[in-house]
């Protein structure tokens, strides 16, 4: 009886603690840069200068010109001023109330690409975001901009999926993404308001840019992000990767090494492909935990299993092409995207594309997430 009492107090808890350790722990995939001591160089490092040069050249090509930057900056400043005015003195404008507005995205992060002069601004509404309110806000902002500079040709358009609206002049575009304050999120009515997921993603975008400012200001990271975005745009297989995933991946590749010193761009570039090829973004991998969300959410879980397979497959093919000297094609200085899908020959070595591993027979698809869950359940059950 006494024992029962004692056990009742501490026993199961301890048992649980000990047991929980054994639950499914996602593991980081093999990463040679993290276990360098185990792999001493058996042969001299190859000369990477060409790759380095090519990457820098590509980066220069991709960076926006000063004129472009000025154009975007001008438009963003104007819109910010208008929004500020609306916050301070709403005047007769009562369709919505603005809590604050913030710049997010590539413009804010300094990872903009040329010919893509789009800056993102998130507007947080104090009021609930109805489609009408968003439209009214768009019209109001455009109206005031026109009043300020009648000469400008401004076009206001609503963004697809009711994300917000965009205002563009001849040189630049500013996307105004609308969201609302946190406490309003649960009051949303899907019939009437913007999609909650989209609103949340806009709030997340603010967190992301904040995180980026604090953690990823190293210019290697920015260069790498630009290169990766370019890579994503060129290869269809990378389509599912979101900008945020690329940001995190670039940060991971540049900064996550034993010395915690930023790695050079070419190393990091290759490492990104290596990581993806090693299945960083595959099921069962620890991936990269989202630093802006609670609960240790792995960013790649936003992709479907099929997409994860596709991303990994593309990276694997590209990595082999890169290793066999096809860096110009991978980086995008030459050739086209077919290297990821067609058989290619590099210096006499045949690099063949890979096939999808993911199958979706209905029962399997059902079972896959279920199995993992069930495993966890088992443990809980066994525990109790």
């Amino acid at each position, binding site marked *: 009886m*006494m*024992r029962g*009492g*004692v*056990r009742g*107090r501490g*026993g199961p808890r301890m*048992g649980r603690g*000990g047991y929980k350790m054994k639950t*499914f722990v996602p*593991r980081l*995939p*093999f990463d*040679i840069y993290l*276990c360098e001591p*185990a*792999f*001493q*160089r*058996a042969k001299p490092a*190859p000369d990477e200068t060409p790759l380095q040069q090519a990457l820098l050249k590509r980066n220069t090509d991709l960076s926006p010109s000063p004129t472009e930057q000025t154009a975007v900056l001008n438009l963003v400043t104007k819109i910010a001023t208008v929004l500020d005015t609306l916050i301070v003195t709403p005047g007769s404008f*009562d369709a919505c109330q603005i809590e604050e507005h913030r710049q997010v995205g590539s413009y804010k992060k300094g990872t903009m690409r040329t010919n893509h002069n789009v800056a993102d601004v998130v507007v947080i509404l*104090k*009021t*609930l975001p*109805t489609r*009408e*309110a968003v439209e*009214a806000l768009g019209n109001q902002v455009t109206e005031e901009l026109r009043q300020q500079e009648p000469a400008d040709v401004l076009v206001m358009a609503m963004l697809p999926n009711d994300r917000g609206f965009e205002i563009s002049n001849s040189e630049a575009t500013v996307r105004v993404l609308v969201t609302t304050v946190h406490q309003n999120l649960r*009051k949303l009515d899907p019939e*009437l308001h913007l999609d909650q997921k989209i609103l949340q993603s806009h709030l997340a975008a603010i967190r992301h840019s904040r995180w980026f400012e604090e953690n990823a200001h190293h210019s290697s990271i920015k260069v790498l992000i630009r290169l990766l975005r370019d890579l994503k745009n060129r290869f269809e297989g990378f389509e599912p990767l979101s900008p945020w995933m690329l940001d995190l991946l670039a940060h991971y590749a540049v900064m996550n090494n034993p010395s915690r010193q930023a790695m050079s761009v070419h190393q990091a570039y290759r490492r990104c492909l*290596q990581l993806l*090829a*090693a*299945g960083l973004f*595959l099921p*069962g*991998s620890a991936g990269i935990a989202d630093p802006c969300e609670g609960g240790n959410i792995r960013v790649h879980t936003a992709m479907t*299993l099929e997409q994860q*397979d596709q991303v*990994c*497959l593309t990276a*694997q093919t590209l*990595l082999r092409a890169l*290793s*066999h000297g096809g860096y110009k094609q991978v980086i995008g200085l030459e050739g086209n995207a077919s290297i990821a899908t067609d058989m290619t020959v590099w210096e006499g*070595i045949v*690099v*063949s594309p890979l*096939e*999808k*591993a993911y*199958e979706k027979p209905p*029962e399997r698809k059902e*079972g*896959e997430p279920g199995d993992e869950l*069930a495993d966890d*359940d*088992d443990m809980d059950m066994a*525990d109790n």
Partner: protein
Amino acid sequence: MAANNYFGFTHGGTQYGAAAAAAAGAAAYQATPAAGYAAVGHTPAAAATYAAQRATTAYEAAAAYQPAAATSYAATASSAPTYDYSYTRVQTYDNAAKTAAFYPQPTSTSFSAAADPAFQAKSSTTYTAGYQNAAARPAGQASKTYNYPAAGAAQSYTYPNQAAAAATANKNYSGYDAALYNAATLYVQQQAHTAPKGAGTWKASRPGVGAAIGQKPKLKQPPKPQQLHYCDVCKISCAGPQTYREHLEGQKHKKKESAQKQTAGTTPNAPRGGNSLRCELCDVTCTGSDAYAAHIRGAKHQKVVKLHTKLGKPIPSTEPVVVPGKSTTTTAKTGAAATTAVTKTTEVTKVVATPKINFVGGTKLTTTTPTASAAAAGTAVKEEPKEAAAAAAAPAAATAAAPAVARDDTVAVAAAALGEKEVEPVGQEYIEEIKNEEGKVVSFNCKLCECRFNDPNAKEMHMKGRRHRLQYKKKVNPELIVEVKPSLRQRKLQEEKLRRQQMREEMWRRREESAMDDEERIYWEERRRYEEEMEYFEWCRRGAGRGMPPFGPMGPMGPRFGPIPPMLRRPDSADDRHVMAKHSEIYPKDEELNAIQKIVSNSEKALKMVSDDIAEADAPKKDDGTATESKDEDGKELPRTLKGVMRVGVLAKGLLLQGDADVQLVVLCAEKPTRTLLERVANLMPKHLATVTPDEKYALKLSVEQASLIITNQTEPQINVTVTLTSPLMRDGAADGEPTASKDPPDVLDKQKCLEALAALRHAKWFQARASGVQSCVIVIRIMRELCQRVPTWTPLNTWALELLVERVVASAGFPLAPGDALRRVLEAIASGLLLPGTPGLIDPCEKEPVDTLSGLTAQEREDITASAQHALRLMAFRQVHKILGMDALPPPKFNRGKFNRKRRRDNSCSGENGDSEGGDGKKDKKEDESEAAKADAK
């Protein structure tokens, strides 16, 4: 005291009569009327009486009394609890009229003697007759219905109150008179309103007085219509006497009239809650400033204004009159307190005068109107008489213009009057304009409230409206302030909620307290027990001496570990299960292992004998055969040619797979092995093998090129033992180069083979030191070896490179890996391009120089292996590890059964399908492998 009196009443009227007659006694009653009521109210008999009385009373007024009586009663006896006094009041009234009928019944004393002095003494009016009349009438009715003494008693108790009230205040009395007067006329409803006034505040229903009394004469109106026929009730004019009469007889008029009478007692159209605005002119009550504004703008109002202007009648200002919802009684009360008997009399005169208001001339009577409106102000609502007068005096044109001017302001003014703040219309953008074909706006649709309206005014009002604002608050701007409507129900609900919450809190608090108590108690209990236990163990420990201590402290916790071991059985991941299943499949069977063990140990024994033989044979030569036994022993160490035999390769590493038939032994020689030595050993072997195992037959084959001899057994399973001769000198020689080479005997064995054998020795040592200590490493190497054997793409990867690769990769994880994870990590490493050009390569730890173990692979081979690993990795990630391993998918683990019925069903169906297509599945796998192999071949 009151109770005493009641008691007395129920039994006889004598006491009562005395009380009623004596004013002092009556005053005493008044002092505690509430108590008296309460007491009676609680006697069931009395209650029953009420019910009976109500049911049987033929008095028409009964129903009409209730509302008025309730309020008036509250005014008189505000200290009384919520008992249903409307009935008492009814009775009170009845009583006043019926006493004559009742008193005789129980007591047979002369009631009229008792009653009449009470009333008549104070009544100075001509209504006595009326009163008597009234008294007589109900008496007649009541005498039919009230037969119970109890009923008499119940009624009797109310009477003193009434009498007392009547007796104490003159004004009350006059009110009472009025009531009686009314009763005498057949306006039963009106009596209902006036009746309460007798109870002390006849002012309580003030508007009623003015209105009700004022209305009576209207009926007298018809006989004297003049040029313009104006109906005051309906506020319309009629063209001629005929139409006027028709109108008066019409349903509409009657309805209006009765409605007016109905409501006259209470606040006219009293709103349920909150304030409202009233248009005096049209006698319309509006619930809000917007509604009021709309009314003012409305055609009807305009018409009335026009008419009144035409008539020269006073037009009250468009400024609204606030009709307070609830507070009427209280204000009226104060009014009542302030008014003296004189004001009462003026009102009485008003009663007389009012008929003239409903005039018929249009000119002279204007003078009386102010009086009327003043009276109305005094009685009904507080309107500034001056203003009213001014409005009346104003020229017709001005009055006509007034509404137009006022229109814009009406809302604001009305709002101001109501004390509500002007609300900004919100949510304009949610109101859609619906246009007809010509593009004209025909109606509006509010998307927030999902309602439609046609009038632009309505749109405006809607946007200000409460409902719309609530919707706006809910759907657009949660910060919008919408004033709370304090409806009675809501308030009640709120109170209820609050109360419940309080109760809940209380409950939680109590529970917490008690829970805390419990917990504490349990804690101390346990604590005590634990200490006892510890003491016991301490005692045991001392008794048992040293043996106990390590266990001692664990004692109390000992049981905890009991149930855990079974739980420690780790539920492996699917990958782990597949890998382990595959591993057990490829792991050699016991008989195989035994056979290998047998032949190897026999070979070793034989080699040892050979070594002895050779040493013996050589020793005499060297020592000239003079060596003693002991010397022989000592000397043997140095010159012994065959220094020892060692297991190498898969045998030493324990990497044997099922079907492996080749094992290696290495014999280290003191000097560089020569062909002569090899032949010598080969010649000696059969003899010694025979001595070791006489019953086993072994075949022996000499392979000089391999620097080895191969021993093969004759029985199944056939096993080849390759014995390679080598010497550490070979390596040194290689290192030193020329000089040693020149010293070499001419028939020295193949150097490369010897070096390989030496390397194999080092590898075996390395393996035992490093790889076998890494969790899952050996298993994965076995699996990978099998893969290399099975899949042609992987064949170029030699065993040593594979071992090294796996060991490095698995060990670099930094923590123990499960077999499935370890395999996946190996695939990840290869997939990430570990074998590809440009990577560091795999350094061989068993060589002095940095050597890339993988150097044997061509670039294409590396590429193919990488591609294959990449695909395999993804297969593994997507739960198809069985395809890599070349096996069937395993059904989910058995231990799930029974715990999860739902899951088991699914699993069963799964395995069932698998069962159905097992052959197919297997074939598919094979095909897959084949196709993979074919692909690799193609490359």
